[in-house]
């Protein structure tokens, strides 16, 4: 089971129509279909992950998020999900706008670049952070728009996006005293539920 599933699952009503942007191997959609009877689609561009989706019977659509989402109608989904993909798109703020146009609610998860490990790498070693969770070197990373929990909240404020829920977890996907007290310092992954 995916570590973020229990949190995301609780934010999705049974039978919801869901669009998963960057759906990977389709495991989230498959689990949501099994546990929440959701319908919907996943968008993916990686051929290997698309194959895995086909194998699972997930409705995967080969589509590049950077080429827009104009083919999806306004408010055509209950929830639009994007897990660990925001940092890899070319214009995160525009994708966010599109998500909120297409879905009544959006769930977004992203790696928190404000985490103390990242800060240590940069401030202490003077190097870009490389870890198990961010395994790429700066020149070959698909992650081109890292942000922190605070950065994302600032963007939501600037765009008048309403944050319904925010959960920040550590590398084990646990909510701890530390992630609760200082999410931007101790959180590894931020999970937001937002709406207009």
């Amino acid at each position, binding site marked *: 089971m995916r570590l973020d599933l229990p949190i995301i699952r609780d934010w999705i009503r049974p039978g919801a129509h869901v669009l998963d942007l960057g759906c990977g191997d389709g495991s989230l959609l498959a689990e949501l279909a099994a546990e929440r009877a959701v319908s919907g689609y996943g968008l993916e561009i990686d051929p290997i992950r698309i194959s895995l989706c086909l194998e699972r019977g997930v409705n995967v659509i080969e589509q590049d998020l950077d080429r827009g989402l104009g083919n999806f109608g306004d408010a*055509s989904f209950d929830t639009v999900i994007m897990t660990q993909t925001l940092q890899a798109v070319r214009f995160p703020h525009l994708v966010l706008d599109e998500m909120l146009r297409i879905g009544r609610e959006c769930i977004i998860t992203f790696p928190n670049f404000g985490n103390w490990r990242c800060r240590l790498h940069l401030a202490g070693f003077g190097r870009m952070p490389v870890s198990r969770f961010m395994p790429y070197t700066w020149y070959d990373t698909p992650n081109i728009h890292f942000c922190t929990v605070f950065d994302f909240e600032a963007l939501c404020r600037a765009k008048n996006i309403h944050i319904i829920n925010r959960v920040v977890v550590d590398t084990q996907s646990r909510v701890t005293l530390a992630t609760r007290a200082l999410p931007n310092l101790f959180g590894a992954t931020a999970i937001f539920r937002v709406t207009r």
Partner: protein
Amino acid sequence: MSKETPAATGSVGIVSPRLQRFDEPLELACGRVLPAWELIYETYGTLNRERSNAVLICHALSGNHHAAGFHSSTDRKPGWWDNCIGPGKPIDTRRFFVVALNNLGGCAGSTGPRSVDPATGRIRGPEFPQVRVRDWVATQRRLADVLGIGCWAAVIGGSLGGMQAMRWAIDHPERVRHCLVIAAAMRLSAQNLAFNEIARKAIMADPQFHDGWFLEHGTLPRQGLAIARMIGHVTYLSDELMGDKFGRELRSGSFASGGEAEAEFQVQSYLRYQGDQFADNFDANTYLLMTRALDYFDLARDHGDDPVAAFRQARCRFLVMAFSSDWRFAPQRSREIVDALVGARREVAYVEIEANEGHDAFLLPITRYHDALRRYLERVVPAASSTRGADAP
């Protein structure tokens, strides 16, 4: 130690076509009625006891019922989709009971312009009625009835075949579980219509065409048919592929000064060969009929030109596939299908294959293409349920 042929290269072996006669009159979309008619078809694999593993293959413009295997031990060329149909292949005949037919109006054995009208004793020729995609689906449904197939596990088609598959999903939603639409479109673009018109004009302008009565005149409009095929062939390939395959290579002659001999490019000789081959084996009236059926097809016409409304009729799951370099049925046309299906909230997966073979790619064993087909189809019928055969129909 004996060397076993890998399963992935298995052939269905030697197959024989069967002819099915239908004596119930068939009212066509054009209003004319065929009192009796015949379809030629082949089957591969075994229909299971639950009759739940049947797959229909719909052919494209110049296709026929011979989709896989060989007709004799000396037959050198297998069926047109042999790389995809067979034991261990993506359309796995150990799992599926595969039905392939020659559509009505064809020239490979089903009733068409080459068959004799019993009322007049004359070859039908240009008087054979214009059939449409919906007529093909109606006749395929009659064939399914005869074979005892209440519901297809999958209806699969590329190009014009994909149009038939979509028509099946909409006209007979209760009889299709999966619809596989490959390199197709919901209707042709103006450019596509134009290419078909040029091809038809080439045939009709051939002095040997005789207004379609060429067989009565003991001749064939070879030139016209060959040109039609050459035009078609250019549109089925990509610029890139033609560049890779032929470039500007000369087959004969040279550009050396002092020589008057005409230089011939490799691509010329290739096209001429393709054209000539086709002209000897295909019926000109069928070509006119098939291209018109392609032109007339418009999935959403009966649904207020709203493809979303059209697809709301469907209940099956869809797999839509397109090829990057296909400009005759471009990926954008497939994306329109997907968008309409998403709008109608139907189950759909879409795969866009990177390939430089153009429209022709759908007939080729491209690794990612076949892999996607295989993975999708493995879920359609679990392997175990096809182990026991049903009584022969």
